[in-house]
């Protein structure tokens, strides 16, 4: 069977490639691991250093200011529930994972999105890669990440970054590229400089779209950090993974509730911020 031989050769090439990357790019991957783990440790420390009620109070104030007093109250209650279930540390670890992954994902996707919004060729080149990332099953990113970064939060973060990349990049490119023609003309007719055109015209018009992208990326990241429990990410994902292995249904439901609370709080807060920005 020529086909079987070919497939075997292909598989060998993939593994050989990964090995080669590991051997020759070891320093690079060490650096990536340290960067990811370093930021993660910092965020985690920040979230776990104060007592849970301080964080819940913060959510209360933020929710009240950004969305409304009712949502602020619910957010604080929800976080209190997480603590009551004995999952406070895990919940904050998950939050730290999401925040860290988002920081790195946005560092890449926002500038690239702006570039793609300006240069159609960049957008065309990025399109297939983004399609690929969004169509492949997200589990798939865990294996090569384990091979290169080892077991632990860094692997979970790397995989989450990749999954969180496309929405923010796409919607940033869309927003920047779709500035209404009359406002481009307004800028030009006033003798605007290129950076002013970006800051004063393109960015304000793109803001709502960019924030929608950030919100979507955030939701993708939440989905992924739970899956990444398999690779020892820590946090609620790992709690759920452990509960599934021991058929501990009660714990898995508790952890799921905690994830739902965290997701809703962050989703509503970012949406609220986006709406305010769009209105201002």
């Amino acid at each position, binding site marked *: 069977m020529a086909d079987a031989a070919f497939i075997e050769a292909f598989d060998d090439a993939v593994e050989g490639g990964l090995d080669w990357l590991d051997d020759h790019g070891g320093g690079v991957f060490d650096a990536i691991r340290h960067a990811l783990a370093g930021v993660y440790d910092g965020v985690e420390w920040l979230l776990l250093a104060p007592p849970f009620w301080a964080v819940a109070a913060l959510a209360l104030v933020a929710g009240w200011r950004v969305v409304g007093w009712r949502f602020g109250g619910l957010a604080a209650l929800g976080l209190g529930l997480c603590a009551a279930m004995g999952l406070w540390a895990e919940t904050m670890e998950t939050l730290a994972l999401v925040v860290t992954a988002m920081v790195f994902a946005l560092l890449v996707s926002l500038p690239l999105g702006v570039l793609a919004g300006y240069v159609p060729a960049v957008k065309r080149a990025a399109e297939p890669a983004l399609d690929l990332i969004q169509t492949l099953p997200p589990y798939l990113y865990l294996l090569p990440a384990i091979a290169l970064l080892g077991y632990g939060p860094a692997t979970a973060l790397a995989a989450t970054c990749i999954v969180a990349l496309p929405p923010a990049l796409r919607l940033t490119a869309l927003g920047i590229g779709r500035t209404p023609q009359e406002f481009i003309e307004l800028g030009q007719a006033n*003798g605007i400089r290129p950076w002013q055109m970006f800051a*004063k015209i393109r960015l304000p018009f793109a803001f709502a779209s960019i924030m929608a992208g950030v919100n979507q990326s955030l939701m993708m990241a939440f989905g992924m950090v739970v899956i990444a429990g398999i690779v020892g990410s820590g946090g609620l994902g790992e709690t759920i993974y452990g509960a599934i292995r021991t058929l501990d249904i009660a714990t898995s439901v508790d952890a799921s509730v905690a994830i739902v609370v965290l997701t809703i709080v962050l989703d509503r807060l970012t949406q609220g911020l986006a709406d305010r920005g769009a209105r201002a």
Partner: protein
Amino acid sequence: MSAMAASEVLIDCQSVWKVFGDNARAALRAIADRGLSKTEVLQEFSCVVGVSDASIQVRRGEIFCVMGLSGSGKSTLIRLLNRLIEPSSGRITVKGQDLSGLRGQALRDMRAKHIGMVFQSVALLPHRTVLENAAFGLEVQGVARARRLEVAREALARVGLSDWAGRLPRELSGGMQQRVGLARALAADPEIILMDEPFSALDPLIRRQLQDEFRSLTKELGKSAVFITHDLDEAIRIGDRIAIMRDGVIVQVGTAEEIVLNPADGYVADFVAGISRLHLIKAHSVMYEPAAWARARPEVDVGALPRTHPEADIDALIGMVVGSGQEGVAVVDGGRIVGVVTPRGLLQGVRGTAPADLSVV
């Protein structure tokens, strides 16, 4: 009119062409060599001829209207004047500077300081207040915040919107928004204002009001303007001179009176057919030569006729003829009778034709 003819040319377009499309260069050559029509260029090169061999001159202090239907190339023409669109060929000079020679900062300076623009869509930034919008041009130029807001406040006062400075654009009616657009253009104090169909989207009463305000404001501030419109009534109301465009070609340039009395072709004639002549045509265009009139009507004493000046319009003349019950009105210029306007001549003027021969006086 004569004073204006002598004044300086601010915008000078010489044989300007704009052909849109990938093969524009080849299309342009084919037009020059073989004289292709607009349709042939579209079929053969899939290029669209936007502006075709346009030559216009806008003088200091003048309001120059460009009138044409949609697709006539008028919006392209006005964008050539501040180089939002690059011409395919031809030469455009603004205040003595060749636009095509301006690079980077020089072009930005020209646009920021000398040419203002008002858009049909108004294009007010929705997230900024009316005052901040009015200050936009100065902000781009890097004028300090306090100073630019002060100037913008003055500009808003000029258009009667002082009380609305702190509002957002969406809180204003269409007419008020367009006033902000005008204030924004005036705030940078440019000598030339380009108006791209600014009042087209407004309802008729507001439109007339803004037309009058725009004309008096422009004259009061001593600005020059190029005003694009698809409405001949608007062009006549606002413009000192009018250019009529069709299919990218400037068919005729002249004062409203010249165009109505002597349309260059059937197209222009059709256009002006429905226009009221009452305030458009002046005594000097419909009067008879006094000596010839005296010969034709020896029984009437010319000296006894009511008198008026050469710029009196038909509406005023009709009033005089009806009120006096006389045979006609004597037109006096510099203390001398230069012509006689008769009821017959007035009727012809109302129809937009020059007076016929005297045998039928």
